[in-house]
């Protein structure tokens, strides 16, 4: 029996077609997405370390003046205090300082009948330092109204917002060192971080 087997594997290698480059790898893309919404957060205030003058301290959100007037002249005593707020705004925003009364006014509902020569509202200055920007609101107490000051901050901010309240010696809405009419005096100062 004669058998002729013709196995030409070398010929097969020479004629094998190479795979196209695009089949030799396969890539799948999977995006990862999320969002960070615009937020501003102001934490509750705390008394700043360091000296405060003629203030009893911060109770909750209330700064209580110790001796508002000199006991002999009834002129306004100087007072100053600094308060800190931990704050963050994750976007370019606006800082607004708003005084409810534009000065320390008597809290009784009836407006006082101004008695000549007496102080019936006490002006003060509020200075704010935040995100490298400083601004101040002078509550001049000349009229009882909402007084406001705003400043634009063109970048996100995170850290400590510093508020300093300063009452000058003899401060008065009538005449420096004029005696102050008796009563409870107060103002509400709001700090607002908001979109521009």
């Amino acid at each position, binding site marked *: 029996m004669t058998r002729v087997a013709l196995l030409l594997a070398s010929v097969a290698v020479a004629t094998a077609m190479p795979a196209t480059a695009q089949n030799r790898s396969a*890539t799948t893309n999977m995006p990862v997405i999320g969002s960070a919404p615009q937020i501003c957060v102001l934490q509750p205030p705390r008394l700043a370390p360091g000296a405060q003058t003629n203030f009893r301290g911060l109770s909750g959100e209330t700064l209580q003046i110790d001796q508002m007037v000199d006991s002999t002249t009834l002129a306004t005593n100087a007072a100053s205090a600094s308060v800190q707020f931990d704050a963050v705004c994750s976007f370019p925003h606006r800082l607004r300082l708003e005084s409810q009364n534009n000065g320390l006014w008597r809290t009784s509902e009836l407006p006082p009948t101004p008695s000549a020569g007496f102080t019936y509202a006490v002006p003060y200055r509020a200075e704010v330092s935040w995100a490298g920007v400083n601004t101040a609101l002078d509550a001049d107490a000349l009229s009882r109204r909402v007084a406001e000051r705003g400043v634009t901050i063109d970048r996100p901010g995170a850290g400590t917002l510093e508020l300093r309240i300063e009452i000058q010696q003899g401060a008065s809405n009538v005449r420096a060192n004029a005696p102050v009419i008796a009563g409870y005096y107060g103002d509400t100062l709001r700090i607002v971080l908001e979109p521009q």
Partner: protein
Amino acid sequence: MTHSLILAAGAFVALTAGSAAAQSATDTKSFAVVGNVPALCSGGTIVGTGSTFDLGVLIDTTTGLLRTDLAAPPKVLTGSFCSSRSTITVNATPMAAQNFTAAPPAGFSRTVDYTATASGWTATAATFATGAGSNPGAIQTRPTAFSGDINVSIGTFATNGGSGLRLVSDTSYLGLVTVTLAVAN
């Protein structure tokens, strides 16, 4: 007398066919049949969930810091195969704010790092950490042909620059995970 030489009388001339070795009752012929299959990889498809990992809101809105509970369900590449020895490579780019592209101010970051993992193809899963200086484990080799599912997951999220930094506000933070199967030699 005629002498006839009967030379043939005692001998028979037998006329037979030639040598038996060259021819027989059966003959056989054969031919080879050859072909080839190229080395190729196919990435498979993601069924049902789409290809995007959507983490939603990235921050704790009361603090502005990265949420500590960020998670997205893993994805499965179904029907992946390579007809020969192969490598699997996972790559990831950190999530970056797409609109806020300037350098972030002090106290802020615009980038979130994470780790992407592709498992099921090789004995050791391929991983890529976007915050790492190098990722040698991002390429793994499968020594044989294989067909199977690849599980892709992301995790270990961290604010780039430090966990105390806040994320700048941006509605679009975007990163990309890629998984590549390639024929290996």
